[in-house]
């Protein structure tokens, strides 16, 4: 799966740098009040911001290899463990503000072959979206769909806007911003998973909220 488009790369860097710069300055401007509850949330916000900065570093490392295709390193992993792991991470980030649920369908295989780090990175993008937009609940699911392992992140947000659904559906590179960046990246990760010519897919939909589905062959 070849990552295409230096324009996209440049847009990504630009967008992320701006946003992070503004965000971290905003956070720095909030004064500590010597009041436990307030100070703790400021601290955790700063920490989270740092977390995002570091995530950017990770992403850059992958993009650095941008002139080469993404080569997933496949091994056998447990989808059950993965769902629990992602849910635990989402709960920690949600700080009790949102309800995090999991659901693993009976037909979910005990083992499946994928690149755990890449898949986690893709799902984390969806989690971050859900954390921002969900009203009360995030749901992480695994099931089989048409011979593929489907990993889903559902929320009860108003759903994805039409232009994002369209652009991900036809996979056209565009001047992505915000949510679109992570989704394009998730799509590349999905499509880098190739099982005898069958490629993985990213599917987005709205079903009483946003539904992010990663299909792994």
């Amino acid at each position, binding site marked *: 799966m070849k990552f295409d488009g230096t324009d996209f790369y440049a847009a990504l860097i630009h967008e992320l740098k701006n946003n992070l710069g503004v965000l971290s300055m905003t956070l720095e401007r909030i004064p500590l009040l010597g009041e436990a509850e307030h100070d703790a949330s400021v601290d955790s916000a700063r920490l989270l911001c*740092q*977390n995002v900065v*570091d995530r950017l*570093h*990770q992403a850059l*490392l*992958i993009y650095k290899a941008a002139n*080469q295709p993404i*080569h997933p*390193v*496949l*091994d*056998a992993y*447990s989808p059950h*463990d993965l769902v*629990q*792991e992602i849910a*635990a*991470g989402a*709960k*920690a980030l949600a700080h009790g503000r949102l309800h995090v649920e999991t659901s693993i369908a009976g037909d979910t295989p*005990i*083992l499946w*072959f994928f690149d755990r*780090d890449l898949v986690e990175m893709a799902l984390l993008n969806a989690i971050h979206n859900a954390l921002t937009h969900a009203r009360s609940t995030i749901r992480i699911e695994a099931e089989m769909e048409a011979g593929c392992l489907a990993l889903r992140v559902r929320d009860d947000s108003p759903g994805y806007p039409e232009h994002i659904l369209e652009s991900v559906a036809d996979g056209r590179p565009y001047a992505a911003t915000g949510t679109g960046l992570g989704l394009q990246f998730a799509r590349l990760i999905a499509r880098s998973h190739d*099982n005898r010519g069958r490629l993985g897919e990213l599917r987005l939909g709205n079903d009483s909220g946003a539904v992010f589905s990663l299909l792994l062959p």
Partner: protein
Amino acid sequence: MSQPPAQDNDAFIDYGALRALVVDDSPGMRNALRLTLSNFGITKIQMVANAAEAIFQIKNRSYDFILCDFNLGVGRDGQQLLEELRHGNLIALETVFMMVTAESYYEKVVATAELAPDDYMIKPFSAELLCSRLTGILLRKRAFRDVYWHFQAQDLEASITACDALIHNKPKYAVDALRFKGELLVALGRFEEAEALYQQVVSMRAIPWARLGLARALHLQKKNEAAEEELRDVLERAPEMVAAYDLLSDVCLEKKDVAAAQEALEKGVAISAKTVRRQQKLGEVAYGNGDLDTARTAFDNVLEKGRHSIFVTPADFGNLCRVQLEQGDLEAVADTLKKNKSTLQANPEGQLVMAVTQSIAHTRTGNLSEAAKALDVVAGLRADGTRGDAQLMLDLAGACMANGRHEEADAVVAEVARNAHDSEALLAKAKRLYDEAGRTDAGASVLASATGDVRKLNNEGVVLAQRGDYKTAVEKLLTACSEAPYNPRILMNAVWVILKYIDQVGMDETMIETARTQLREAERQAPGHPRLAGLRLQMKDVETRFGIQRKAVR
């Protein structure tokens, strides 16, 4: 038969009882990791700043969990620490070793390497993620308890049986069990079965370690064409998979395609320059190909990148100096010796490398009195039993000849030839030395008598053994061993004959102890030799039948 302890099937993990070691050079990070671990109940935590402290702690007491940052500042890095721990058997298979790294690229480099950690964490990570990963590994290791127990008791057959049980009864660990079983089959020399096993995994999904395992099993059966085809295809899909280049170079070497072997190693080095053994091999192959520039860069890198690695030996200094000498760069030789003086002075092998190199350098510049002094130092070291690798000893022979010390030269060459009676390359190099010194006839007789004696003893021993006269065969081969104590082939033949002898006449404690010593020595001299696994198995078999149970290491 002794039995492993009863299986504890409970999925509960008592983190309070877990002993953890955190290795990180940054005090802030150490503290953060300690807080993270205490978050999920790990309280017995030892914290150290570097690899040396880690090794000290690990030698003092055992740990259940080692969390180690890849980047440890100056000194060994996390990967070098792991290699040293695994190589020196300092940690049990049950111990969880997790690497913390700032880059996701690390995984690509080590994922299929034999010395991979149990898992790695990409910074920054949450306590939750660390906890769930650790729990997963601890549960897996618990499921593998029988497998590990038998393995550590050197009962590989039982270990395989335990793998089969996991494959059938614990689908979650089936693929991990297949992977371990594949390695056991290779260790036992059952390459055909290993090939079938890897083929079975590949048919599920072409995952990298299975494809590499398949290529290795093919290579070990000398199906080098098929192995090469597999590896080239793996590399086309995943060009960054360094372990595949290493194996490809072995395959090419066996096919005598030395240029392709060098090319494969160069590609591997371009992706990951830090692995000392890859650089060593590149240096050796390039030197053999006459590509001195590449050899020099590689040997330079061995010393540079491997400054803290246990895989660097005095021979590596000798290798670099040899290339520098052949390039006529005497200044560089002096520089290498000067820069590494304290390292080389620290042990007799290093002193030998230094003295041999100096003797050659002084001979080149015509400073014969200094050359003679250096050769006297060498003679003293050799009298005390110090030896160098075969290349260094041949260098020494050359220096002796150039200084008219022909008797010494003959003795050195004879020693090399006895111990490498079957190495065409070394014997040819020795022959060239005599040709260049205008002593072709003398050389022929030294080589013929040295290799002849050993070959004769060896062949007589083998023939006697085939006739069933194991007692005399043992005598012959033990004599051959004392003549050529560094010849792995002779050592292995001796082990084989002793085991046959015991088979015939019954247990002989002294003999079996001799066989054990020789086998250990052969393993040290020729690690990974295809005959070793079979001999180990026969040894085990004899020990079992005569009721000797070696205590399992728990």
